[in-house]
Every structure is written in structure tokens, then in C-alpha cells.
């Protein structure tokens, strides 16, 4: 478990990093190193063999949490633990706040970054799921420009995203919901801190009469990518949410997902657990929204 040979770079500015990443004059395999919680073990096992490793941990432009009122921007290089502990997260992004404690262990969250988790695009990871549920805006830089893309559509397949060679995810802009909202995140993992077998997140907004005016629901570990459950959302919006309605709304979940089997959970297990975890998330979100 020793990494194959690679060349190491440590830029201190985003421009410098973009330049290094874009410099593709040869058939080199360039790779960014952020928190390294996945990449470094992958390299040690030689499952990842970058020839050029570009360490972006010293780039201050990638750090920080900014409250913009209607949205919150998180620098892609911000440590998961820093986001978890920031009061802005708890106040403005309660779904992210609920999901973060499930991400690995606090030791790994001290290193792991929000952006690193998103660009890895693991279908059972919590942060990509939250980004998808809230349809965050992803701000991407490359040597010749900057663009924005939505999380909806970003996750294309197992560990595959819409990121192109030369792209650096720099900022994630999460929308903040107004009004009476509630959110909750549930998952089952073999042990605390393991990759989720199935995870479910839900955020709902109610009007003054208690009618659901907005719902965002998604599941992880149930398809090649994190999955938003539009059909469940549609069944809830415009309704007064009762236990019966929620039970009815989650009924199609097994047909909306496309899980695979792994050592610790079969596809059948995931099909059975997913609707139940969605239900738990919805009920908790609802009880949080109701005063």
C-alpha cells in the first residue's frame, strides 16, 4: 500500500491551480488533492494513480462560509467540520447541518472538504445528496473561465460528475428557504460513520395554514447517483401533511430507485429501507416545521 510515483504541486492561488490543472501537454493524469480522505487511501492501494498531484489546501480563495441572505456560499475547500460547527449552517442550512454528523467521523471531517465530497460524487455520500435535494449552485473555475451549474444534473453516474478535465469546483451556493420550514436527515450504515447503505433527506415548507408549499426529498445509496424523489415531492405539495398522506406518498419509492447489492446490503434491503427512511425524514421534518 504505497502510492505509485507522482509529482506534487502546491499552488497558493486559484489561478495557479487552474494553470497547473490545464497544462495538459502530455498524457499526464492530473488530480487535485483537497482533504485526501478518499484519494490518499485510493492512491495507497494504487486504485488511483495520478501522475501529477495538485494540492489545493493552501488556496485561501477556496475557504470559508458566506451568508448572502437568500443563499449561503461555502468555499469548496472548507473543512466539513468547520461547516458543521458554523452557526450559519445550523441557522440557514439545517438539512446540511443534520447530514454532516453522518459524514465519516469527526477526525475525517477535520480534513475532508465539502467540495471534495461533491466532486467525488459517491451515491451514498451525504453532502452530494444534500446539494442535490436543495439543488445547490456549483461554481466552477478553469483556466479560461468560470461557470455555474446546478447540482440537479451534475451527478451523472457512479463516481461520475459533469466536471470536465481542467475544472475546479470552487464554491457551492446553497439556497436558503424562507418561512416555516423543517428538515431532517436519516440514514442506516453498518456502523456509525460508515458509508450509508441508505440515506434520506427531506426539507419541507408550510404556509400559515400548515399546507405544504414546498418539499425537497432525496435518497442516497439507492441508485448510481444520489436521487431526488420528485414524485414524492409532488404528492405532498399543496396538501396538508398527515401520516396517511405521507404513507401514501412514499409508497412508490421502491419503484423510483435503482439500488445495487453490496456486501452489507442487498438491493432488496435498500428497496425496503428507503421508503421507511424517507418516511422518518419526512415526519421529523414536519414536526420541526410545526411549532
Amino acid at each position, binding site marked *: *500500500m504505497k502510492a505509485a510515483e507522482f509529482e506534487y504541486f502546491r499552488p497558493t492561488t486559484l489561478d495557479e491551480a487552474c494553470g497547473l490543472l490545464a497544462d495538459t501537454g502530455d498524457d499526464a493524469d492530473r488530480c487535485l488533492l483537497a482533504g485526501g480522505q478518499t484519494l490518499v487511501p485510493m492512491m495507497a492501494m494504487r486504485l488511483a494513480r495520478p501522475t501529477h498531484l495538485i494540492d489545493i489546501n493552501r488556496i485561501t480563495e477556496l475557504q470559508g462560509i458566506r451568508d448572502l441572505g437568500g443563499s449561503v456560499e461555502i468555499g469548496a475547500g472548507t473543512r466539513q467540520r468547520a461547516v458543521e460547527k458554523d452557526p450559519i449552517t445550523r441557522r440557514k442550512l439545517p438539512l446540511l447541518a443534520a447530514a454532516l454528523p453522518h459524514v465519516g467521523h469527526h477526525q475525517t471531517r477535520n480534513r475532508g472538504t465539502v467540495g471534495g465530497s461533491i466532486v467525488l460524487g459517491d451515491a451514498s455520500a451525504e453532502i452530494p445528496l444534500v446539494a442535490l435535494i436543495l439543488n445547490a449552485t456549483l461554481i466552477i473555475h478553469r483556466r479560461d473561465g468560470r461557470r455555474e451549474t446546478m447540482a440537479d444534473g451534475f451527478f451523472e453516474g457512479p463516481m461520475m460528475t459533469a466536471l470536465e478535465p481542467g475544472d475546479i469546483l470552487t464554491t457551492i451556493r446553497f439556497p436558503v428557504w424562507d418561512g416555516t420550514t423543517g428538515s431532517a436527515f436519516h440514514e442506516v450504515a453498518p*456502523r456509525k460513520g*460508515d458509508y450509508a447503505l441508505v440515506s434520506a433527506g427531506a426539507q419541507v415548507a408550510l404556509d400559515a395554514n400548515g399546507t405544504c408549499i414546498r418539499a425537497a426529498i432525496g435518497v442516497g445509496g439507492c441508485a448510481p447517483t444520489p436521487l431526488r424523489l420528485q414524485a414524492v415531492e409532488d404528492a405532498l405539495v399543496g396538501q396538508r401533511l398527515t401520516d396517511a398522506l405521507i404513507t401514501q406518498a412514499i409508497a412508490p419509492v421502491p419503484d423510483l430507485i435503482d439500488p445495487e447489492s453490496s456486501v452489507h446490503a442487498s438491493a432488496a*434491503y435498500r428497496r425496503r429501507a428507503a421508503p*421507511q*427512511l424517507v418516511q422518518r425524514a419526512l415526519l421529523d421534518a414536519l414536526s420541526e416545521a410545526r411549532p
Partner: protein
Amino acid sequence: MPDDRPAASNYRYISQPRRTKEDKRFITGRGAFVQDVQLAHTKHIALVASPYPRANILSIDTSAALAMDGVLDVITGAELTEHTDRLYHGVDLPNVRWHPLAVDMTRYAGEWVAAVIADSRYIAEDAAELVAVEYEPLDAAIGIERVMEPDAPLVHPDHGSNILLKKKFVWGAVDDDFAAAEHTISYRARWGRSSAVPIETFGVITRWSEKDEVLEVWASIQMPQYQEQIADALRIPLNAVRVHNYIDVGGSYGVKRGIKQTVLSGYAARKLGCPVRLIEDRIDNMSGGDAHGPDRLFDVTLAYNGDGLIRSMKMRVVDDVGAYPGRSIQQLGKPISALCGPYRMSSIEYDVTSVTSNKTSQVAVRGFGQAPTNFALETGVEKIARRLGLDRTEIRRRNFIRHDEFPWKIPSGTAYDSGDYHTVLDKAMRFAGWDALIAQRDAARAEGRLVGLGIATCLEPGGGNNIFEHLLNEKIQITTFVESALLKIDGQGQVTVAISTHTAGQGHQTLAATVAGEELERDPDGIRVVHLDSLEALPTRGPVASRMAIMLGSAVSKAARRLRNRMIHIAAHDLAVADTEVEYADGEFTVRGDPARKRSWLEIVFIAHRQLHRMPPDTEPGLQTIEVHAVPGGGKLPNEKGEVQIYPCFSFQAHIPLVEIDRVTGQVEILDYAVAHDCGTVINPKIVRGMMMGGIGHGIGAALYEKFDYTEDGQLLSGTFLDYLLPSAHEIPDIRDTEHCTPSPLTSHGQKGSGEGGYLGAPAALASAVNDALEPLDISLTELPMRLADIEAALHTHANPVPETAP
């Protein structure tokens, strides 16, 4: 009634909650592990592993690897086999050949096929990728029952069968007892393939000293007769092997037995003339390190009466030892020492089969096979209780051997030394708050929650009289299982104890210093304990089998008493009185009834070392002695009925966990865990407690999380910590423990073994708790580990029974 360490008050150091000698160096980062050994010009091994569980090796091309800068050599199985002898098996298997590297055929995915030796591990791994092995893949023998079928692929074709051992023992009148019993119950229990997986993998550095013609070995090892096995395999005299026993071991729990690694490293070191280091990485360790644990299928029938009394047992067990059995095959033998646990059975039939498969080889794991057997036995006790509607604690009480019946001889001939099982169980229940826990469980059940209270007991044989090996292999006629201590008091009056083994975290320095300090009335903190290397060492069996408190403790005690008496003798001579007139206390030798006439510790030390003119004429100068202690009650071969005393001392524990199962996910949460333990006199309470907590953690892993999963065609699925799930601090609850003391009559201070009991009891107790939680649904699970998906599947099947299909 003995209670709460009654003897403790009589001791100055023994049983006192003193700091251990070892903790300081570990906590301050000053341990000396194998990886800390830095020798000039050390070369590094990386391994080429077979991707196939079973394949013929057609060719190995090492030229590209050898051409790399920094690569010294590539060794293959063919070369190694020419220059070294095959490795040892615990039973007689002339046609099952085990070598450090595969020869002609690979027998499991991950088996090492070639070894690259290079200037650094990085270069060695780069070169290992360039070793081109041509394989002819073959169908693999996978599945504990499948491998026994006549058309199964053969793991060792020359052996002609995948069955390595088949033996049946009958002790007592089994047929009569079955005929007389009112009921029988038959069940199957399955213990999954798990192990101990220490944070530190196995590692070894060897150096051939041309000057001394000695192979020096530094290793993270816990194995009896390590040096003998090295000498045999490398075809060098035993006195040409020097194992440095001071090396700290970063966890073992039985599994640190890297003989193949050592032979490979030793051969390379001698061939290349430089130190060669092989430190397994996690993948080497988990797939290729031959360190998996027992993998067992039990079919048990118990004969019992309506009152719950168990009269007899028929236990059939199959163990899948993987590709090469090594000594681990004998793990079916040790359970014979306590096959009926703490229960009064009058006869037992024990039918053992050991099979080979295309899985990674098995190794000794904590308890040497006893944890699975205890789980199988306790499963039956629970089943009888359920069937009779008898309380699970009551059935145990009815079957327990009584305190006044010791020594109690079980059908296989072993006499248990002492015990008070009723009292310990009562104590465990009181301490746990059994009635309150039952109320808590019932209240939760009323809310529809799945909460269960578990109970299990276990016997922990300690001391290591391994005569069971003869039962499985009559060629083994070894009856000597000793441990030695060398004690000396130097010219300054300081005490040093030299012990002859390595240590694997069991605290032998604390043990030896505490016992020596007690006997000599000197502060253990000032007593030095050193590990003799294997050339200096005295006869030893080593730190296995929960034996060191019993064996080393007794050896040190005897040696220290001898020196104490010798000092009294010197003092008496100097004071011109009879030995019996001198009293020793607190470093002073005083004439009885005449306190003014005395000699100090230092005066006697000075006489012994420097003043021959003041010495008694019959006394050797200096203050030193050797004690070689044999296992109490050992030294005998089995009689014609296969009865024999195996192990001397028997500790006892009662475990009571409370669990809750999530109905949706199948996840088990341990809400509470209480345990009462009785290992006789405790030498150091912190060490006993640490071993018990670690053992319970280990047992939680075996019960709920850990398994080496394989695909049907023989690929290891859980070969990293991503899928091989060790319980972490989150999964191990705060464990509440209480102590009891039933001293052993066979040891210096009444001590017994304590390294294994946590692991022997926890899996059975957690299975009991899970099954209690599932009882309202009439679900009973008898396969470990009980992982969340297994439990969820059982809940799902219960809720959605398969509809009967129309004819």
C-alpha cells in the same frame, strides 16, 4: 462466601489497583515495535499476490522486475522450496505442503506467489507490479459443506480429499444417557469467519550475522516455539536463531503467528547478506497473511429432562481452516477442555471434521476455538429454556456444577479446579439490575419496540496444558508446557526478573514485578523485568492460552520465595541463629523476639555478593535463582478412553447485555452491558479489566459485525476495513463490570487466566439478547455474525411469509 476480592486485603501489591509498568511507554509513544527497529542497509519486501483462488502457476517472469533500479532479488516459491523446509501443521498431513510462497498452484485469492526485495517498500511495490505470472485459473472449493462433496475441486490434490481431519470422541455413556433422557433437541449453529485484526499488522525484520552465524529476528509475534519453527524451516540449528523478545506487539489476540513471513524474510536476509524487513500492509495482512479465524458449522443434539437438566450432548462440528491448516487445525481440540461449559453433563460425544478450502488460512484466535464452541453450547441452553418455558437463568442454575463439588471432573477427563457459578451469576444479575432490565425490556415491548435482554456464561480454561493436541494427532506426545523465571538481586539490592518470552500486550512486566514484589516485600515499581532473547531464554511455552498469570506468576513466586528464604538463611547465619528464628518484613531480617538484633536488606545483599567470609558454607554466592514451572496437573498422556486433564484453571464469567433492534434497518444497538467475572485472585485489576473489556469488544465484533465474506467463486469481499467491520468506540458501549474471587488451589496466589473470557462470553450473550428481542416474533437466529441485513431479512420474512404455492 468469598466475595469482592477477599484476599486482597492480605496483599500489599497483588490485587491492588496499581499503575501498570507498560502503560507509561505506550502512552508516551515510546514503545519499541518492530517498525521502530532501524538497522543499516535494511531491504524491503513487497509481495506478488495471486488474483485467483485456485490456479495453476504456469510461469513466473521476474526479468522486468529485476531490471528495475533498486531491486535486489525476486524470490519465487520454487526457489524457496529448494532451500527451506515446509511449514508445520498441527495434524499429520504429509501431502499438504505449506510454504511461504505458492508452489505450482495457488490456493486462495491473495496467496503470495513471489517476493520482491528492494531498497524501499515503494520500489519493491513498483517492481512487484512487473512480475509477470501466467496462471491457469481453476474452479475453487468454497463453502463449508460444498468442499466435502465428492466432486468438489481439491485444494490439495495430493491429499486426495478436502477433509483434513475427522475424529469422533465418546466420553461416558452417551447412548444410555440419551435413551434415559425425557427430551432431545437438535439445532444448527454457525460461527462466521472472523478473526482478531490488530491495528499493527504482522511484521518481521531478520538479519543473518555472518560474524556469529546467527539469524537475528525482530518480530511482532505471539507464538509458542517460534524459534524452533524458524530453525526447522531454514535448516539451521536452534542455537543459530536469536529472536529478540523485547519487541512490543501492537495487538495480537492470538493471531501474530507470522512463521511464513519470517522464513521468507530469513531466507532472503541470509541469501542477500543484509537485513530484510517484511511489514504486512493491511491488504497483505487480511488477504494473504494467513490470519483468519475459525469458520464453523455446529450440529448439536442435547438430551435433557423436563426439569431442564441436561444429561448428555452430541456435538458435531466442521471447521473450514482455509488453504493451509498450520497449527490452527488444533483449535478444534482445545474446546475439549471445557466442552460442557459450567454444566453437569455426564457424557459427551464430540465429532470433529476439519476441511480445507480455497480461502485464506486460519490462525489461532483468542480462546483457541473456545468462543465458537461456547456460543454453540449456550445456544442450546437457551433453546431448551424456551421450549420448557423455563427462565433462562434458572435453567443455568439447575445445570451448574455446585461450589462444593470442585474439583469436578467432566466426561472428557479434565477436572475443573474451582468455581462458584451460582454466586457469580447471582452477582451478575444483582449488579446488572436484572429485574429492572426485564421491566425496561417489557415496557419497551409494550410500545412495540424490539428490546432484548441477553444472558450467557462461559468458562475460560487457562494455563495451557495443550495435551488436547495428542487427541487430534497421536504423533504429538508433548506433555511439557513450562514457563520459566530467572530472578536476581544485584549488588545494589535491586531486583530483576528475566522472563523468557515476548509479550503481546498482556502486561507481563507488571505481572512479574507485582508477584516478585509481593514475595520479597519490595516495591514493584523498582523491580526491573527484562525479556531474554531466545538464545538466552530458559524453557518456555510462551504467552498464549490465558496462562501467564498462572504459569509465569507461579514461577516468579517460587523463585522469589526461594531468594527470600536464602536471604533469611544468610541473615540467620550472620546473626548466629537458626533460620526459623529470623523473621523477614519490609526489608529487615530480625531475630524473633529480639528486635534489636537485625540485618538490613542491603547488608544481606552485600554479604551475598561481596563477603564470602560471612556466608553460610552451603550457599552459592550472589542472589539469583531459576524456576522452571510445569503446568499443575499436567504431564500425562490421555488414557485408553481418551480422558485427560487439559488445562489446570477455569475462570468463569456471566454476561448480561441489553439490546434494541431497529425494526426497519435491523440495526442492533447495545443499550447496556454488564458482566461479572471470576478469575480467582486478580494480580492487577487494571490489566484484568482491560483484557475483559477488549475481549468483550472483540466479541461484539464477532457477534454483530466482523466477517470475511467471499463470493461463491472464491474472491474475498471484505479484505479491507471498508467492509471488514471492526466495532469502533461508537459500537462498544460503556461496559459495567464486577468482580468475584474463587481462588484456584493450583496457583501461587489463587490466580487464574483472564485474557479470553470476554471474547468467550460476549458472542453468546449478544446472540441471546438479539434472540430475546426477536422472541415475541418467534424468530430465532443461530448464525454469527448477526449483521443488520441478516436481522432485517429475518424480520421481513416474518412479516411477509412466503405464500404457499398452489399445487
